[in-house]
């Protein structure tokens, strides 16, 4: 009796999950197992038995590991790792200063500044970077003006520009969870460390970092996942050679009209993200921490 009641109560949840998550997922999976039709769309399967036994249904996946696509995959992975590392390196000191050093009355304002960029569309902010980075842009004019360089630097349409755009865009997602965990940090622990002989550096590595590890993990997950699949930044700021996994997938659907291949790539990306999330959840469980995502 009670059981049935529970099921009924959960029905809306199941409906939403099913409609917006499960059904599209299954459709994508099915799509990824088929082949592209001659004029786009999907090719009909004349003999399902033969299609399965010949292994043709895995054709898209096999193709995704071939030379050029694997290269794009690796580069995307590498860019995502680098973005995560850079946002962590920049975000940690910022979050630290915000949480532990900033005077109380400045805190809210400074924290607000971290969030302010969200008030404008990410697309517009990325366009703004184009204006900043191009040869006659603000950055170059500044560099020329100060005499730091004598010819404008080619930044726009390089991987450097993509990196700048990515780090810029993802930074708040690193700072916020770090701030949350640093804010929770019990300061008397730092005093205890000092009393026991630890200098600033030592107490940072032995106390602060381990105790904010959940925040670090959350930041890494929050930054790494969108960086891996992103396509706007590389599209706008990157050159022809900066194609990333996200662009490739978008391309398959929008330009190459090879939806089954695009679906397979999307599925692989999703699998990678899922693995990372599982690892994260497992790590947090083991630490007895709440899973933040």
């Amino acid at each position, binding site marked *: 009796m009670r059981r049935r009641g529970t099921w009924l109560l959960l029905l809306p949840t199941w409906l939403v999950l099913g409609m917006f998550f499960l059904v599209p997922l299954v459709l994508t999976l099915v799509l990824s197992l088929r082949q592209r039709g001659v004029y786009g769309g999907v090719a009909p399967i004349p003999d399902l038995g033969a299609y399965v036994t010949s292994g043709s249904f895995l054709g898209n996946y096999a193709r995704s590991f071939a030379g050029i696509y694997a290269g794009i995959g690796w580069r995307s992975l590498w860019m995502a790792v680098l973005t995560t590392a850079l946002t962590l390196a920049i975000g940690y000191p910022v979050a630290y200063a915000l949480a532990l050093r900033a005077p109380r009355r400045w805190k809210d304002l400074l924290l607000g500044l971290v969030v302010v960029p969200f008030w404008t569309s990410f697309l517009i902010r990325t366009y703004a970077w184009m204006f900043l980075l191009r040869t006659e842009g603000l950055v170059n004019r500044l560099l020329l003006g100060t005499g730091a360089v004598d010819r404008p630097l080619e930044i726009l349409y390089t991987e450097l520009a993509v990196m700048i755009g990515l780090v810029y865009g993802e930074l708040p997602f690193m700072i916020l969870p770090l701030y949350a965990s640093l804010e929770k940090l019990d300061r008397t622990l730092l005093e205890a460390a000092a*009393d*026991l002989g630890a200098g600033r550096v030592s107490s940072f590595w032995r106390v602060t970092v381990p*105790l904010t590890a959940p925040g670090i993990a959350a930041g890494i997950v929050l930054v790494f996942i969108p960086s891996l699949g992103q396509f706007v930044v590389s599209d706008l700021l990157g050159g022809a050679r900066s194609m990333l996994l996200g662009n490739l997938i978008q391309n398959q659907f929008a330009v190459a009209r090879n939806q089954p291949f695009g679906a397979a790539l999307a599925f692989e990306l999703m699998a990678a993200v899922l693995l990372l999330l599982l690892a994260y959840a497992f790590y947090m469980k083991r630490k007895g921490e709440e899973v933040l995502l």
Partner: protein
Amino acid sequence: MPLSVEIRRVTKRFSDVAAVNEVSLDIRRGELFALLGPSGCGKTTLLRMVGGLETPSAGTIHIEGIDVTEVPPHLRPAHMVFQQYALFPHLTVADNVAFGLRYKNGGRAGWSTKVKEALDLVRLAGMEKRLPHQLSGGQRQRVALARALVLEPKVLLLDEPLAALDPQLREEVQVELKHLQRTLGISFLFVTHDREEALGMSDRVAVMRHGRVEQVGTPAEIFERPATRFTAEFLGATSFFTAEVASLVDGVATLRLPAGLDLQVPRPDASLRPGDRIDFVVRPEKLRVRVERPAEAEMAVVPVTVEESIYQGMGTTWIVRGPAGERFVAWEQNAASVLDEPSALRPGGAAFLCWHPRHTVVLGGGGDA
């Protein structure tokens, strides 16, 4: 006796407020010394300055004869047991205790022995692998003790060491801490706002108020001979009298109460002059409330009206009003069962408040409000 800690005219200002104000204290070697006072009187701040976690705005602090006023915390032979223990939650008991060892001279080799010895000392052998959240409050406190003691401090600083413990555990830990201090022979400087704790544990107590030291003495001294009204009140005395010094003869002062009663008091303050108006206090357990005027001629007696009696099992508290409506409180042990010998005193009835004159404690001019 050699001094362990010398605090000389130490002041600590936070913006405008002086949390600690011109405090001077000597803590002897091997002494269990308590800083006692109400919340916000600057006890913790003073302790933290001895530990080096705060720098004095003025004054000097010496530990074992060395000026440590500007010395960082870990270079002082003083270590701290924090109020909430401040154990590192991500480290095991053994790692917590070993935390400070790497900053000491001497190699890793001796670590495990030292950690083991420290844990044995606080009776935590076998708990090495546990994490702090897997320990009881009392065990956590012992880890905090071991973590500080393993560094072999000359002075151990404890901030409200019993406050975070269950009341049942407190007495036990009190005895244990005293025992530990005797075994180690080092000085313990501890902070408390609990008078029982200060009286029961320490060799000497400094009573603090508004950042100043009000009185220093053994527990019995501050309890039986409070120098100021504040100390007397903080230690539970509530019956204050005003009187005039009528005469001083051979070290015996005659005090005249407003009601016209005379009272012969031995050992008066040397600074008393005939004609002075003074305040004195009598502790509640030294006061008696009687229906009949007591026969002994030397007893001090004030006629009163009984206002309230509060039966408390072990004793009864009597609240009475003096001739001018002053409020006095007496506490009498129920040596006999009140069922066998019910008191003849009734609320509203007349009675006599009496005490032996030697229990009269004349309060010093420390009435600086």
